[in-house]
Structure formats: structure tokens, C-alpha cells
């Protein structure tokens, strides 16, 4: 019952979503939508044909042999999970080369994002780099300009940290009003991995930064030559030069063979396919820190170097893709995170913020990492307005959308970390709404 219900709802949310797609790109998106629902229908049909597998019958897989070892030398998810994929919103960008995809937060558990589902953000596509032909150079205001091979980098003492990676544009489509009828599209530009590499401070010590060296220019080897100015205090604090994620080498999408990683900071600063670090006495004011990743305020001025991702949270179950069915017991569940440290508390409201209850933090609560929260809930079928509110260890309380808009207006594009509202309808469906 529950199985057949879910695809139906997913189809609906995609249909609703396509209503927002401008006519020029609608055809492509619909094509994808059709493909998407066809595959779901196939799954549904398969389950029907296999109803003999339910008790009291003995299932067919209990009476036969499965596949042997290394039939899949690098394992992939069950074919019944083919719906758990990255998705993009075609009308957001001019093409797929400089674009973004979102992680399927609605399907993920725990705090670690599987490598194949980590959201993608490229400015010139993902290059295919041969690690033997890749070099990392450190130069500028240093005593010893150095050039490292990947083998060199792996000889340094390594560290592993679990940190989220979030695009500062996450949720940016929602500044003016509720637009995306899916958690994947309202919040999916975030992922959380175990990152392994060498501290940037270790490499800087190796090169010997001169006293005038206050900024680090990080530059990628991709066709965008992605470049950002990083203040020396971050470089010496927790910045990492990363070559592995979740136990294996970086995925090409994530900067293979090596990237910069700035915990808690906007994803753009964690330059992928890193080829060069230059030490200077001033910032460079490159395109990604002037034209982009600056935040326009209502007075026409703009904030720059808005590096930190402030405390944020969202309910992942229920959500538009995960509606409730019958009345009864449910777990309201979600994720919270802060670029300024640990999540201290998450509160949940079911009445649009009139009353709040403290949720439980589950599992690991780590600094600058996704943190799971939950609240058991007995649903009596009443409609509601579900919200979550994160508080981090600095005492910062996640703001309401009105509070953010009062200060920033609706044109700052980035860093929209406001409390999110899901409207729970009496049929158990969830709509993306905003409260005034």
C-alpha cells in the first residue's frame, strides 16, 4: 500500500514543478519527468507480479541463488533505489556545464552523503584529470615556492573530518516566495562527507609564508580556472587540502584528484581540481568574489566575502516527496547544520511557529557537519504548518524568513538560511509554503 502511494505522489510533485518551468525549457524537463514516472511504474508493476513473494508464500529469492562476488566489482545501489539520484532544475542555468544538481535529501539517512549523490556545482564542467599529470603549486610570498605531485601530497600527515559542503545559493530560488515543490530542490545543494587530506597549514609551513602574506589565492585546473581569495587565518585554522571523500579518492565531480576544503564556508571557496595556491598581501577580488558570491542589499550596496554558512535546518520527513499516509505515529525528522560550529539544539513547531518543542539530536553531533534531529509525533489527521529551528553553539538562532528579508530584501541571492515551512494537509500531503 505504502509502496504504491509514494510514486503517485512523486509524479504529482514533478508535475507541479514543471508548472514553474518556462515554456522554452519545459519540453526537456517534461521528457525527463516522463522517463522518471515510467521507471517508477515499472517498479510498481514488478512488485505486483511478485506478490507471490509475500507470506504465506516463500519468496522466489529464498528458493534460488543470487549473484556471485565481483559480479559488480564496484557496487551500485539496488535497482529498486533508482529513484535516489541527483537532479537538476533546467531553467536555473543556461546550460549543464556551468550549473548545479541537488542531492536527494528526501531519501538520505544519517549524516553522510554517499559519494555518488553529493551535489554537483561546476563552472566549466568536471574535467577528467590524470593524477600523474596533475601538480599543486605554492608560490608568491613564500620562502620556498614548491610544486607537489599527488604522491608528494599523500606523504604528509593526513587528517579526516566530517563536514558539510553547502552551496551558498542553496534555497536561493525561494527568496521571493515558495517556488520549488520538492525538498531536493529547496535544500539539496548540501552534502556531508568524511574528507581526508593534509592541513593547508602544513603545506604553508613547508613553503614558509612570509610575514606580509595575509591572503591565499586558490585556483582550480578546470576551464573556469576557478579562483577565490582565502584569508590567512582560515588557511591556518581548519582548511584542508583534500584527496579523499568517504574513504575513497575524490570523485571527479568533487575535484579529483585534489581540492581545497574550507569547513563551514560557502562551497564556492572549496576550490576543486586545485592546481595553485598563491600567497599575497591583499585579496584578488576575482569574478567569483565580486560579480558572484557577493550579496546585494536593499540599499544597493553589497556584502562581500560572506564566507560562513549560517545555522540552518529543514524537515526531511515529511516533505513534498515523503507525505504521510494514514493517521498515527510518525517520526518528524530532519537535518540541521551550522558553519559556525556545532548544532546545540533544534526545535520543531507544528503550528507555524506559535509553539515549539525541543527535538532530539540523533547520532553524531559534530562541528560544521549535518546533524540529524527527530521528534516522535502522533498525527490525528489535522492540517499543520511544520517548521524546524536550529540553534548553534554560538547561541545563534535560525531566523524567520521575515527577519532575513527585513535586513536583506529579496535580491541577495545567497545565504538564505531561514526557517522553512511545510504545510501538512489533512490528506497527509506536504506543500512548500511561506508564512507572512
Amino acid at each position, binding site marked *: 500500500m505504502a509502496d504504491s502511494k509514494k510514486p503517485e505522489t512523486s509524479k504529482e510533485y514533478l508535475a507541479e514543478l514543471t508548472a514553474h518551468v518556462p515554456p522554452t525549457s519545459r519540453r526537456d524537463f517534461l521528457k525527463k519527468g516522463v522517463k522518471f514516472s515510467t521507471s517508477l511504474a515499472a517498479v510498481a508493476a514488478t512488485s505486483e507480479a511478485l506478490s507471490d513473494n509475500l507470506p504465506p508464500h516463500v519468496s522466489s529469492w529464498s528458493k534460488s541463488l543470487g549473484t556471485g562476488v565481483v559480479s559488480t566489482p564496484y557496487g551500485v545501489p539496488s535497482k529498486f533505489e533508482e529513484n535516489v539520484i541527483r537532479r537538476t532544475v533546467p531553467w536555473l542555468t543556461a546550460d549543464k556545464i556551468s550549473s548545479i544538481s541537488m542531492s536527494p535529501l528526501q531519501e538520505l539517512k544519517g549524516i553522510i552523503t554517499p559519494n555518488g549523490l553529493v551535489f554537483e556545482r561546476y563552472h566549466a564542467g568536471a574535467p577528467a584529470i590524470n593524477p600523474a599529470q596533475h601538480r599543486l603549486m605554492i608560490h608568491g610570498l613564500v620562502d620556498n615556492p614548491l610544486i607537489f605531485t599527488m604522491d608528494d601530497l599523500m606523504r604528509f600527515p593526513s587528517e579526516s573530518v566530517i563536514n558539510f559542503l553547502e552551496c551558498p545559493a542553496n534555497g536561493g530560488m525561494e527568496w521571493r516566495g515558495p517556488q520549488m515543490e520538492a525538498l531536493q530542490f529547496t535544500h539539496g545543494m548540501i552534502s556531508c562527507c568524511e574528507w581526508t587530506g593534509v592541513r593547508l597549514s602544513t603545506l604553508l609551513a613547508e613553503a614558509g609564508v612570509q610575514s606580509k602574506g595575509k591572503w591565499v589565492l586558490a585556483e582550480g585546473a578546470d576551464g573556469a580556472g576557478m579562483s577565490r581569495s582565502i584569508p590567512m587565518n582560515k588557511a591556518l585554522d581548519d582548511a584542508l587540502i583534500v584527496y579523499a571523500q568517504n574513504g575513497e579518492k575524490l570523485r571527479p565531480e568533487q575535484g579529483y584528484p585534489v581540492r581545497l576544503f574550507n569547513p563551514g564556508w560557502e562551497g564556492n571557496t572549496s576550490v576543486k581540481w586545485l592546481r595553485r595556491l*598563491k600567497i599575497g598581501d591583499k585579496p584578488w577580488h576575482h569574478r567569483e568574489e565580486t560579480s558572484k558570491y557577493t550579496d546585494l542589499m536593499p540599499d*544597493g550596496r553589497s556584502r562581500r566575502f560572506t564566507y560562513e554558512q*549560517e545555522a540552518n535546518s529543514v524537515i526531511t520527513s515529511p516533505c513534498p516527496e515523503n507525505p504521510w499516509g494514514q493517521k498515527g505515529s510518525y517520526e518528524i525528522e530532519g537535518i540541521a547544520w551550522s558553519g559556525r560550529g556545532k548544532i546545540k539544539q533544534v526545535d520543531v513547531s507544528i503550528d507555524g511557529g506559535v509553539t515549539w518543542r525541543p527535538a532530539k539530536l540523533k547520532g553524531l553531533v559534530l562541528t560544521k557537519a549535518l546533524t540529524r534531529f527527530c521528534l516522535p509525533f502522533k498525527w490525528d489527521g489535522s492540517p499543520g504548518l511544520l517548521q524546524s529551528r536550529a540553534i548553534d553553539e554560538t547561541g545563534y538562532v535560525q531566523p524567520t524568513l521575515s527577519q532575513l528579508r527585513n535586513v536583506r530584501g529579496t535580491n541577495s541571492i545567497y545565504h538564505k538560511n531561514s526557517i522553512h515551512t511545510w504545510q501538512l494537509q489533512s490528506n497527509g500531503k506536504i506543500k512548500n*509554503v511561506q508564512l507572512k
Partner: protein
Amino acid sequence: AAETGRYGIGKTATIEEIAGWDIDIRPDGKGLPKGKGSVLQGEEAYEAQCASCHGLFGEGEGRWPPLAGGEDSLTEDRPKKTVGSYWPYASTLWDYINRAMPFSAPQSLTPDEVYAITAYVLYLNDLVEKGFVLTQDNLASIEMPNVNNFYADDRPDTNNERCMKNCKDPRNIEVIQS
């Protein structure tokens, strides 16, 4: 050569190696290679290499970014952020064209072509005259209209209270649908 660091890992980067990759430009003009390009040369190069995406007048074709226009639009409901209306430094334009443009053929332009195209984009924004020639010596002196309108991150800028009960009047809640 200087003594290498604590671990002695890595090789000294040679002057030639550094020179091949050292492409970054700063607002004060530091990093600019020798070269020059006129608005007129830029017009030709722009029309050949840039206009199919960015439009003949920098207006932007389809979803591709506009480069010119939008003066005094930054406080409007729909601001138009372009090189002329928004970008604080001309150096950024030179640096970005050089490292990443044309979109399908990055790092394919010669320094003189980058000077010329930069000059032309500045001209499209009414920031230089038609007879202007951009060089490594005058780029840093070009003043961009929006240069003084950027400031450092001053967040946190909200102060939500952790209210638990009777936090607002439920009758005042207005639900905005998509």
C-alpha cells in the same frame, strides 16, 4: 635554493613553472602581462568570439549573461548586475576573460586580445571612449562606478529569540502558496 620545510616533501617550483601558471590579476594591476588593445580591435574580436552568447551590445543572448547596461538598477525590484552597473574592478574583467573565456575555449586568447576585448566591454558600458587603448599601465586607473559599494561581511544580522510558547498570534499567520 632555500632550505625546504619540515618534511622536505615536494620540489622547488622553478621560475618557468610558476610563470606558466601565474595568471592572476589584482585591482592594482599586479600580475598584468605586457600588452595593449584598442576598443576598435576589441570590437572585432568581441564580435567574432563573444557576441554569439553575450549579444552584439553586451545585452546577453537567451540565458547567457549580459555584460552591459543596468546603470542605477541596484535598488530596483529586479536589479541588472553587469560589468558597468555592478563590478568593482576592471582588473576582474581582464582576469576572468583571460582565465575562463570564451566559455568553450578558455585560456585561448593572447594578452593583446584580452586587452582589446576588455577595452571593448568597458566601452559597451560607456566607461571608456571609442578611441581608448587599454594597456598594462592604465588598467588599474579605470574607475568602476560601483567600486565603493561593497563592504565586509557584517553578519550575523538577525537576532531571533528562542521563544517556545505563544510566540505569535495564530490569527496573524498568513500562508503564502507557491
